[in-house]
């Protein structure tokens, strides 16, 4: 039966090589698959030892995929307006079959932050940021910041006390930006002709983030779009660059 399926035209149109049993077909298996061809066909044995890599970079990416899938499913149920947001979260728990989506999304996000920190620590401790990987380390730092921003913007969406006041604490920092925040150093010194303040409570850095002077419905919409569309798109592009440059900068790290 299996042999029959493997001999069909349909099977052979999908998998253009035999079962990966010998060296040639194993190489083919990696090269002829879009997802697997992120890898080279062969890697150094020491480079993939678990006590060396800890798998943390790969796990960060895997958690990113898990977050994307659970996040898309959550978007079917969730409406980013104050009237419905909290009720939708309750509903996700009470009415949706197996109501685990939000739990997986939430804990996955925390796990992703832990994984990306540990990945950074591993890359630092093995000195893998050193030439020729300087640029890719920089891309990784931006990915780290974006991951934390993803988590931060998502924190607001349940629209409970925890969410609103955590974002209030965070966005209050924006008010203290030098030159650009209402309460920041030197901001009062920026004047338009006639002594009109250049930066007001309606034009400072915190207002840019919240689209309001406090965390309200505009902030919810803004964080929703950032969380679901804008940041993931940037993240996806940078992840692609990050992976591409691993290959181009000498492959996974090991003693030079």
């Amino acid at each position, binding site marked *: 039966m299996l042999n029959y399926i493997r001999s069909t035209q349909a099977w052979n149109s999908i998998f253009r090589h035999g079962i*990966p049993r010998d*060296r040639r077909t*194993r190489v083919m298996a990696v090269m002829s698959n879009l997802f697997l061809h992120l890898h080279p*066909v*062969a*890697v*150094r*044995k*020491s480079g*993939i030892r678990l006590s*060396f890599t800890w798998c943390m970079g790969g*796990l960060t990416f*895997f958690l990113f995929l898990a977050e994307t899938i659970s996040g898309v499913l959550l978007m079917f149920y969730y409406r980013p307006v104050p009237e419905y947001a*909290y009720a939708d*979260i309750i509903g996700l728990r009470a009415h949706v079959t197996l109501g*685990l989506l939000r*739990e997986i999304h*939430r*804990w996955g996000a*925390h*796990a992703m*932050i*832990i994984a990306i920190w*540990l990945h950074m*620590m*591993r890359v*630092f401790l*093995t*000195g*893998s*940021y*050193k*030439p020729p990987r300087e640029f890719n*380390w920089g891309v990784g*730092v931006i990915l*780290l910041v974006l991951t934390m921003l993803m*988590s*931060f913007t998502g924190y607001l969406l349940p*629209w409970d*006390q*925890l969410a*609103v*006041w*955590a974002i209030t*604490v*965070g966005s*209050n920092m924006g*008010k*203290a*930006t*030098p030159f650009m*925040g209402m*309460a*920041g150093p030197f901001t009062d010194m920026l004047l338009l002709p006639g002594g009109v303040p250049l930066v007001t409570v309606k034009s400072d850095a915190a207002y840019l983030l919240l689209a309001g002077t*406090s965390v*309200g419905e505009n902030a919810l919409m803004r964080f929703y779009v950032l969380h679901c569309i804008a940041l993931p798109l940037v993240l996806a592009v940078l992840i692609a660059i990050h992976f591409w440059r691993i290959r181009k900068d000498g492959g996974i*790290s*090991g*003693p*030079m």
Partner: protein
Amino acid sequence: MIHSVLTLGSGSKPMFTNPAIESFKSFVNQISVPEFSLPIFSVLFILMMVYYRKWTRPVVSLAILVVFCVFYFGSMLIDHNYLLIIQKPDNVPITIMLLSMMLCLWMAFRNAAINDACLEVGQPLPDADREDKVLVWPDLVYTEMICMILVSVILVVWSVMLRAPLESPANPAGPPNPSKAPWYFLGLQEMLVYFDPWIAGVILPGLIVTGLIVMPFIDTNPKGNGYYTVKQRPFAISVWMFGFLILWVVLIVFGTFLRGPNWNFFGPYEYWDSHLQVPLTNINLSDYFWIFGLGKALPTNPFMREFLGIIFMAFWILVLPVILAKTVMRRLFENMGSMRFYIMAFHLVILAILPVKMVLRWVFTLKYFVYLPEYNLNI
């Protein structure tokens, strides 16, 4: 009377209680305030960096892990307040982070100890064979798949056992006390105790990011590329790991576990009393100089008033790197060149200003080096 109120406030009784445990708890509460515990953690960090060949031996590190777990999880049995903190759903990631970080630290320093022993006697590293290659299919692909399955299982079990936190609906008029940022930013919120928001929330995180990005360009040490080592890059590893472990991770633990209502500090076994009033006794450098030192009133000109703090900051940021380049870091300066060195030194002195200010706060109750509310510029 007071005692009965406290017992009411802290809810049900812990499982074990006796005078010896109570005195242990109050001892831990007393030494856990930052002015004691941060120096203790720093000393532990130095011991970790110096004796990494000793503590990474499997038996020793296993013993350390067991002791840690006994205290960390065993405390849930002896104190209800601690139990509440550890059980809070949003704090569970921190426990997971601490355990996984300890495992990773052990693997890293164990590998470093093995590699450094080889390097010392001039042997090649255990991993040095470049030609020792394996095919991605099956070796790497299967490892990845097993990791993915394991993490999926952990994630699903975690999600089944623990509901994602959800509090009462948003109420713009009623902030909870304490209001906390998400846990991964709590290191920054903890820094707010020592610095104003424009430094703790804008300048310091900004410099963390720029510091990380420029790191490959200012670290000119060619050794230690692609393998664990401590001996070949002691300066880079101790500075970076101090910043990450002490000034980031430990401050996160403080911010989540030990900061209660009004951001007051509470020991791990203390009840979060929201009526606790802590007197604000912090004093500015200018007050110290003019009022206590010279016995005069503060000058009206703000720059005259704050001249000492301004000179100190100018010295710290502009002069100290030059002194470092000429004295203790001369070899580093010659190896790196002036451009790289001063970028590194700038980030280093800013990193150092945080512990310096902490110590000055604890010892002299210093509030601000420079207090210029006229420009919202307090340092």
